[in-house]
């Protein structure tokens, strides 16, 4: 077996513990989005075009709240800004990879492929560029079809459930479940609290602008707390 092929299969194998989550999460998105009023085709199209659960849930929630279009887009993109950091941090490992392959990799650069890929590249610095690409796509080989398929199943189910059927709280619970594991350090906790407090205090602002302001300040608070903790350690 070539090293490229081996890397690809390793990527698939290493992704196995994560795929348990993908299908139910995708189904939940399908149900919630159709309950919010998207058609099954729109729901499916959203998952295929974006592949970013948290941002998709955020957009659907704001659509249901009748927020202005630009606010919806800006909020969803703000949730995805972290991916610029992912992109920056794996770019050095992709020297010598053809442009078109990097273009495809960008489409499937998600939390999990990033985390798995980076770990692999750091622990095995001698991997060839082609093996790196193969491993990266391996991590997404099962995830992507499950994400598409789960969304479609959820959307078809959701369009049969009558609207307003006690799913009003599915989105908040999903977000809280996403946030819990993110609260890794004091800086993350401080940012989260700032975000909550400021959004509530600024709830009177129109167009969900309060959330935008709260998010910006919360990012700065997180960064400052991180600096303070580092200085104290030094």
């Amino acid at each position, binding site marked *: 077996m070539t090293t490229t092929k081996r890397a690809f299969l390793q990527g698939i194998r290493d992704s196995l513990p994560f795929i348990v989550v993908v299908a139910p999460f995708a189904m939940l998105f399908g149900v919630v989005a159709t309950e919010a009023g998207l058609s099954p085709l729109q729901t499916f199209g959203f998952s295929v075009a974006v592949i970013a659960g948290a941002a998709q849930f955020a957009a659907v929630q704001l659509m249901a709240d009748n927020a202005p279009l630009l606010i919806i887009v800006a909020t969803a993109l703000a949730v995805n800004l972290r991916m610029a950091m992912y992109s920056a941090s794996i770019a050095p490992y992709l020297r010598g990879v053809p442009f078109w392959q990097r273009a495809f990799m960008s489409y499937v650069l998600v939390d999990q492929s990033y985390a798995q890929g980076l770990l692999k590249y750091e622990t095995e610095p001698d991997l060839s560029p082609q093996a790196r690409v193969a491993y990266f796509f391996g991590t997404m080989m099962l995830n992507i079809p499950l994400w598409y398929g789960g969304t479609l199943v959820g959307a078809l189910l959701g369009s049969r459930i009558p609207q307003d059927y006690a799913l009003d709280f599915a989105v908040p619970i999903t977000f809280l479940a996403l*946030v819990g594991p993110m609260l890794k350090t004091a800086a993350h906790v401080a940012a989260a609290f700032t975000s909550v407090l400021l959004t509530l205090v600024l709830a009177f602002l129109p167009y969900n602008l309060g959330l935008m302001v709260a998010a910006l300040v919360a990012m700065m608070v997180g960064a400052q707390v991180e600096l303070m903790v580092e200085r104290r350690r030094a």
Partner: protein
Amino acid sequence: MMMSDAEIWTVIVLVALGTYLIRFSFIGLIGDRDLPAWVLRHLRYTPVAVLPGLVAPLVLWPEATGGNPDLPRLMAAAVTVLLGVKFKNLLLAIFGGGATLFVMLQVMA
């Protein structure tokens, strides 16, 4: 929802394009140039800066109760966060929170 089909598709297309550009930014466009440390330090906190704020009003003033704080939903929210923090397990937290809401709504009914 009051959005038209065309508006919904517009949101989907814009979020898709924007997200792709964010992902492609360094891998494809800028290349492996180091980001200033302060930029990275801020980007690290984008998800925890956006998601809790998005969810806070939904938890405190749920639409289903006409915006009045409601014990089952508050408890479901608390259980979800605690499970997420403790076990770092997305599905466990979602099902735990959902089960709490279901049970509490039955108890309070």
